[in-house]
Protein backbone atom coordinates (compact mmCIF):
# COMPACT_ATOMS: atom_id res chain seq x y z
CA UNK A 1 0.00 0.00 0.00
CA UNK A 2 2.72 2.44 1.07
CA UNK A 3 4.77 1.38 -1.94
CA UNK A 4 1.86 2.21 -4.26
CA UNK A 5 1.49 5.65 -2.67
CA UNK A 6 5.19 6.26 -3.20
CA UNK A 7 4.83 5.21 -6.84
CA UNK A 8 1.91 7.61 -7.33
CA UNK A 9 4.03 10.31 -5.71
CA UNK A 10 6.83 9.62 -8.22
CA UNK A 11 4.34 9.79 -11.13
CA UNK A 12 2.98 13.10 -9.79
CA UNK A 13 6.49 14.54 -9.47
CA UNK A 14 7.38 13.61 -13.07
CA UNK A 15 4.04 14.96 -14.36
CA UNK A 16 4.45 18.11 -12.26
CA UNK A 17 7.95 18.70 -13.61
CA UNK A 18 6.64 18.30 -17.15
CA UNK A 19 3.70 20.65 -16.55
CA UNK A 20 6.01 23.16 -14.86
CA UNK A 21 8.32 23.06 -17.86
CA UNK A 22 5.41 23.77 -20.22
CA UNK A 23 4.19 26.59 -17.98
CA UNK A 24 7.63 28.22 -17.87
CA UNK A 25 7.97 27.78 -21.64
CA UNK A 26 4.58 29.40 -22.26
CA UNK A 27 5.35 32.28 -19.88
CA UNK A 28 8.85 33.07 -21.07
CA UNK A 29 8.74 32.34 -24.77
CA UNK A 30 5.15 32.86 -25.86
CA UNK A 31 3.99 35.71 -23.64
CA UNK A 32 7.06 37.84 -24.21
CA UNK A 33 6.98 37.40 -27.97
CA UNK A 34 3.27 37.86 -28.73
CA UNK A 35 1.52 38.63 -25.44
CA UNK A 36 -1.67 36.93 -24.32
CA UNK A 37 -4.56 37.55 -26.67
CA UNK A 38 -8.06 37.75 -25.25
CA UNK A 39 -11.09 36.84 -27.34
CA UNK A 40 -11.88 40.53 -27.82
CA UNK A 41 -8.36 41.45 -28.97
CA UNK A 42 -8.32 38.52 -31.43
CA UNK A 43 -11.64 39.72 -32.81
CA UNK A 44 -10.34 43.27 -33.06
CA UNK A 45 -7.29 42.07 -34.96
CA UNK A 46 -9.45 40.04 -37.35
CA UNK A 47 -12.14 42.65 -38.00
CA UNK A 48 -10.15 45.82 -37.47
CA UNK A 49 -12.80 47.41 -35.22
CA UNK A 50 -12.42 48.05 -31.52
CA UNK A 51 -15.00 46.05 -29.55
CA UNK A 52 -15.30 48.98 -27.13
CA UNK A 53 -16.72 51.12 -29.94
CA UNK A 54 -19.52 48.68 -30.75
CA UNK A 55 -23.16 49.52 -30.02
CA UNK A 56 -25.41 47.27 -27.88
CA UNK A 57 -26.23 44.87 -30.73
CA UNK A 58 -22.55 44.52 -31.61
CA UNK A 59 -21.57 43.93 -27.99
CA UNK A 60 -24.30 41.30 -27.71
CA UNK A 61 -23.02 39.60 -30.86
CA UNK A 62 -19.49 39.49 -29.42
CA UNK A 63 -20.79 38.09 -26.14
CA UNK A 64 -22.81 35.38 -27.88
CA UNK A 65 -19.81 34.52 -30.08
CA UNK A 66 -17.66 34.21 -26.96
CA UNK A 67 -20.23 31.91 -25.39
CA UNK A 68 -20.49 29.77 -28.54
CA UNK A 69 -18.05 27.22 -27.12
CA UNK A 70 -19.92 27.03 -23.85
CA UNK A 71 -23.38 26.25 -25.10
CA UNK A 72 -25.11 23.89 -22.67
CA UNK A 73 -25.30 20.41 -24.23
CA UNK A 74 -29.05 20.24 -23.65
CA UNK A 75 -29.49 22.76 -26.46
CA UNK A 76 -27.74 20.54 -28.98
CA UNK A 77 -29.48 17.83 -31.02
CA UNK A 78 -29.03 14.35 -29.56
CA UNK A 79 -27.24 13.01 -32.67
CA UNK A 80 -24.56 15.72 -32.35
CA UNK A 81 -24.03 14.83 -28.69
CA UNK A 82 -23.38 11.15 -29.52
CA UNK A 83 -21.79 11.50 -32.96
CA UNK A 84 -18.46 12.56 -31.44
CA UNK A 85 -18.14 9.38 -29.37
CA UNK A 86 -18.96 7.25 -32.41
CA UNK A 87 -16.37 9.17 -34.46
CA UNK A 88 -13.68 8.63 -31.85
CA UNK A 89 -14.56 4.93 -31.59
CA UNK A 90 -14.24 4.61 -35.36
CA UNK A 91 -10.80 6.27 -35.28
CA UNK A 92 -9.53 3.96 -32.52
CA UNK A 93 -11.02 0.86 -34.18
CA UNK A 94 -9.54 1.87 -37.55
CA UNK A 95 -6.05 2.28 -36.10
CA UNK A 96 -6.36 -1.03 -34.22
CA UNK A 97 -7.45 -2.95 -37.33
CA UNK A 98 -4.75 -1.35 -39.49
CA UNK A 99 -1.91 -2.00 -37.02
CA UNK A 100 -3.05 -5.58 -36.32
CA UNK A 101 -3.18 -6.27 -40.07
CA UNK A 102 0.29 -4.79 -40.61
CA UNK A 103 1.67 -6.88 -37.72
CA UNK A 104 0.20 -10.05 -39.24
CA UNK A 105 1.58 -9.13 -42.64
CA UNK A 106 5.07 -8.57 -41.22
CA UNK A 107 4.91 -11.90 -39.39
CA UNK A 108 3.79 -13.71 -42.54
CA UNK A 109 6.53 -12.13 -44.64
CA UNK A 110 9.24 -12.86 -42.09
CA UNK A 111 8.40 -16.61 -41.92
CA UNK A 112 10.21 -18.64 -44.56
CA UNK A 113 8.00 -20.91 -46.65
CA UNK A 114 8.40 -24.61 -45.80
CA UNK A 115 9.45 -25.57 -49.36
CA UNK A 116 12.28 -23.03 -49.33
CA UNK A 117 13.47 -24.26 -45.93
CA UNK A 118 13.47 -27.88 -47.15
CA UNK A 119 15.39 -26.89 -50.27
CA UNK A 120 18.04 -25.08 -48.19
CA UNK A 121 18.31 -28.11 -45.90
CA UNK A 122 18.84 -30.46 -48.84
CA UNK A 123 21.45 -28.15 -50.34
CA UNK A 124 23.31 -28.05 -47.05
CA UNK A 125 23.23 -31.83 -46.74
CA UNK A 126 24.47 -32.36 -50.29
CA UNK A 127 27.62 -30.31 -49.70
CA UNK A 128 30.76 -32.55 -49.70
CA UNK A 129 31.64 -31.78 -46.07
CA UNK A 130 28.22 -32.87 -44.85
CA UNK A 131 28.07 -36.15 -46.81
CA UNK A 132 27.95 -39.27 -44.62
CA UNK A 133 31.22 -41.18 -44.48
Amino acid at each position, binding site marked *: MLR*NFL*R*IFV*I*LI*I*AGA*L*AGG*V*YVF*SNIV*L*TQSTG*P*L*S*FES*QLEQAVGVSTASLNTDGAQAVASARDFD*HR*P*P*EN*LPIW*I*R*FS*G*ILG*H*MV*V*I*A*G*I*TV*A*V*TYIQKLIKRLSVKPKALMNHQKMQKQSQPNNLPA
Partner: protein
Amino acid sequence: MIAKSKNSLNKINLYLDLVLVVGFLITMEEKLTGQTLHEWLGIALGASLMVHLLPHWSWIVAVTQRFFRKIPRPTRLNYLLNTALFVTFTLIIFSGLMISESVTGILGLSGSQDPFWKMLHVTASNTVLVLVGLHIALHWQWVVNAFKRYVFSRMQGYFGRRPAAGLTSAAVTHK
Protein backbone atom coordinates in the same frame (compact mmCIF):
# COMPACT_ATOMS: atom_id res chain seq x y z
CA MET B 1 -0.92 -19.48 -5.62
CA ILE B 2 1.20 -17.15 -7.77
CA ALA B 3 -0.76 -18.11 -10.89
CA LYS B 4 -4.02 -17.35 -9.06
CA SER B 5 -2.87 -13.89 -7.95
CA LYS B 6 -1.62 -13.18 -11.50
CA ASN B 7 -5.01 -14.25 -12.82
CA SER B 8 -6.88 -11.89 -10.52
CA LEU B 9 -4.42 -9.08 -11.38
CA ASN B 10 -5.12 -9.65 -15.08
CA LYS B 11 -8.85 -9.57 -14.41
CA ILE B 12 -8.55 -6.28 -12.48
CA ASN B 13 -6.40 -4.91 -15.31
CA LEU B 14 -9.03 -5.83 -17.89
CA TYR B 15 -11.90 -4.20 -16.00
CA LEU B 16 -9.83 -1.09 -15.20
CA ASP B 17 -8.83 -0.77 -18.86
CA LEU B 18 -12.46 -1.09 -19.95
CA VAL B 19 -13.47 1.67 -17.53
CA LEU B 20 -10.58 3.80 -18.80
CA VAL B 21 -11.54 3.41 -22.47
CA VAL B 22 -15.22 4.20 -21.84
CA GLY B 23 -14.29 7.11 -19.54
CA PHE B 24 -11.81 8.43 -22.10
CA LEU B 25 -14.42 8.36 -24.90
CA ILE B 26 -17.02 10.12 -22.75
CA THR B 27 -14.54 12.72 -21.50
CA MET B 28 -13.34 13.44 -25.03
CA GLU B 29 -16.87 14.44 -26.02
CA GLU B 30 -17.46 17.74 -24.26
CA LYS B 31 -20.73 18.29 -26.14
CA LEU B 32 -22.16 15.19 -24.51
CA THR B 33 -21.23 15.94 -20.92
CA GLY B 34 -21.16 19.71 -20.72
CA GLN B 35 -18.27 21.83 -19.45
CA THR B 36 -18.46 21.10 -15.71
CA LEU B 37 -18.75 17.31 -15.99
CA HIS B 38 -16.04 17.32 -18.67
CA GLU B 39 -13.61 18.97 -16.27
CA TRP B 40 -14.33 16.63 -13.37
CA LEU B 41 -14.25 13.55 -15.60
CA GLY B 42 -10.86 14.70 -16.90
CA ILE B 43 -9.47 14.83 -13.36
CA ALA B 44 -10.96 11.41 -12.55
CA LEU B 45 -9.43 10.02 -15.75
CA GLY B 46 -6.02 11.39 -14.73
CA ALA B 47 -6.28 9.64 -11.34
CA SER B 48 -7.39 6.39 -13.02
CA LEU B 49 -4.42 6.58 -15.38
CA MET B 50 -2.06 6.72 -12.42
CA VAL B 51 -3.74 3.61 -10.99
CA HIS B 52 -3.41 2.00 -14.45
CA LEU B 53 0.38 2.51 -14.25
CA LEU B 54 0.78 0.83 -10.85
CA PRO B 55 0.39 -2.85 -11.91
CA HIS B 56 2.95 -2.24 -14.70
CA TRP B 57 5.47 -0.53 -12.43
CA SER B 58 8.05 -3.33 -12.48
CA TRP B 59 7.93 -3.39 -16.31
CA ILE B 60 8.43 0.40 -16.44
CA VAL B 61 11.43 0.25 -14.08
CA ALA B 62 12.99 -2.75 -15.87
CA VAL B 63 12.71 -1.22 -19.36
CA THR B 64 13.87 2.23 -18.16
CA GLN B 65 17.02 0.64 -16.73
CA ARG B 66 17.75 -1.31 -19.92
CA PHE B 67 16.47 1.17 -22.49
CA PHE B 68 19.91 2.02 -23.90
CA ARG B 69 21.02 -1.60 -23.83
CA LYS B 70 19.87 -4.42 -26.06
CA ILE B 71 16.11 -4.98 -25.67
CA PRO B 72 13.56 -6.40 -28.11
CA ARG B 73 12.32 -3.91 -30.69
CA PRO B 74 8.59 -4.28 -29.80
CA THR B 75 9.40 -3.56 -26.13
CA ARG B 76 11.29 -0.41 -27.10
CA LEU B 77 8.43 0.71 -29.36
CA ASN B 78 5.93 0.04 -26.60
CA TYR B 79 7.97 2.03 -24.11
CA LEU B 80 8.30 5.02 -26.45
CA LEU B 81 4.57 4.95 -27.20
CA ASN B 82 3.69 4.75 -23.50
CA THR B 83 6.03 7.66 -22.73
CA ALA B 84 4.36 9.72 -25.46
CA LEU B 85 0.97 8.83 -23.99
CA PHE B 86 2.08 9.89 -20.50
CA VAL B 87 3.46 13.21 -21.76
CA THR B 88 0.36 13.94 -23.85
CA PHE B 89 -2.07 13.06 -21.06
CA THR B 90 -0.10 15.29 -18.67
CA LEU B 91 -0.32 18.15 -21.17
CA ILE B 92 -4.07 17.62 -21.62
CA ILE B 93 -4.78 17.62 -17.88
CA PHE B 94 -2.52 20.58 -17.16
CA SER B 95 -3.80 22.72 -20.06
CA GLY B 96 -7.36 21.69 -19.11
CA LEU B 97 -6.78 22.91 -15.55
CA MET B 98 -5.36 26.17 -16.93
CA ILE B 99 -8.53 26.92 -18.93
CA SER B 100 -10.99 25.34 -16.52
CA GLU B 101 -13.90 27.30 -15.09
CA SER B 102 -15.64 24.93 -12.68
CA VAL B 103 -12.69 23.19 -11.00
CA THR B 104 -10.58 26.31 -10.54
CA GLY B 105 -13.74 28.21 -9.58
CA ILE B 106 -14.20 25.95 -6.54
CA LEU B 107 -10.64 26.75 -5.44
CA GLY B 108 -11.34 30.46 -5.82
CA LEU B 109 -9.12 30.77 -8.90
CA SER B 110 -9.98 31.78 -12.43
CA GLY B 111 -8.87 30.05 -15.63
CA SER B 112 -6.39 31.63 -18.02
CA GLN B 113 -7.72 33.52 -21.05
CA ASP B 114 -4.55 32.81 -23.06
CA PRO B 115 -5.56 31.01 -26.29
CA PHE B 116 -2.28 29.06 -26.10
CA TRP B 117 -3.71 26.73 -23.44
CA LYS B 118 -6.89 26.08 -25.42
CA MET B 119 -4.81 25.34 -28.52
CA LEU B 120 -2.52 23.02 -26.53
CA HIS B 121 -5.53 21.25 -24.96
CA VAL B 122 -7.21 20.60 -28.32
CA THR B 123 -4.01 19.56 -30.13
CA ALA B 124 -2.93 17.21 -27.33
CA SER B 125 -6.45 15.69 -27.22
CA ASN B 126 -6.39 14.96 -30.95
CA THR B 127 -2.90 13.47 -30.65
CA VAL B 128 -3.84 11.28 -27.71
CA LEU B 129 -6.74 9.77 -29.68
CA VAL B 130 -4.26 8.40 -32.23
CA LEU B 131 -1.84 7.29 -29.50
CA VAL B 132 -4.60 5.46 -27.60
CA GLY B 133 -5.54 3.70 -30.86
CA LEU B 134 -1.91 2.57 -31.30
CA HIS B 135 -1.67 1.54 -27.63
CA ILE B 136 -4.78 -0.65 -27.92
CA ALA B 137 -3.53 -2.06 -31.24
CA LEU B 138 -0.17 -3.09 -29.75
CA HIS B 139 -1.93 -4.84 -26.85
CA TRP B 140 -4.76 -6.27 -28.97
CA GLN B 141 -3.69 -9.90 -28.48
CA TRP B 142 -3.75 -9.45 -24.71
CA VAL B 143 -7.20 -7.80 -24.91
CA VAL B 144 -8.58 -10.69 -26.99
CA ASN B 145 -7.07 -13.34 -24.68
CA ALA B 146 -8.30 -11.59 -21.53
CA PHE B 147 -11.81 -11.23 -22.98
CA LYS B 148 -11.83 -14.93 -23.94
CA ARG B 149 -10.67 -15.99 -20.51
CA TYR B 150 -12.61 -13.68 -18.20
CA VAL B 151 -15.68 -12.56 -20.14
CA PHE B 152 -16.60 -15.06 -22.86
CA SER B 153 -15.71 -18.21 -20.90
CA ARG B 154 -17.76 -17.01 -17.94
CA MET B 155 -20.69 -16.21 -20.24
CA GLN B 156 -20.31 -19.61 -21.90
CA GLY B 157 -20.26 -21.32 -18.52
CA TYR B 158 -23.29 -19.36 -17.40
CA PHE B 159 -25.33 -20.17 -20.49
CA GLY B 160 -23.96 -23.71 -20.73
CA ARG B 161 -25.03 -24.62 -17.20
CA ARG B 162 -28.57 -23.45 -17.75
CA PRO B 163 -30.59 -26.08 -19.55
CA ALA B 164 -32.92 -25.02 -22.36
CA ALA B 165 -36.50 -24.14 -21.44
CA GLY B 166 -37.98 -27.25 -23.09
CA LEU B 167 -35.51 -29.51 -21.32
CA THR B 168 -36.30 -27.97 -17.96
CA SER B 169 -39.98 -28.54 -18.31
CA ALA B 170 -39.32 -32.08 -19.57
CA ALA B 171 -37.06 -32.74 -16.60
CA VAL B 172 -39.66 -31.36 -14.25
CA THR B 173 -42.35 -33.54 -15.90
CA HIS B 174 -40.10 -36.61 -15.68
CA LYS B 175 -39.50 -36.00 -12.01
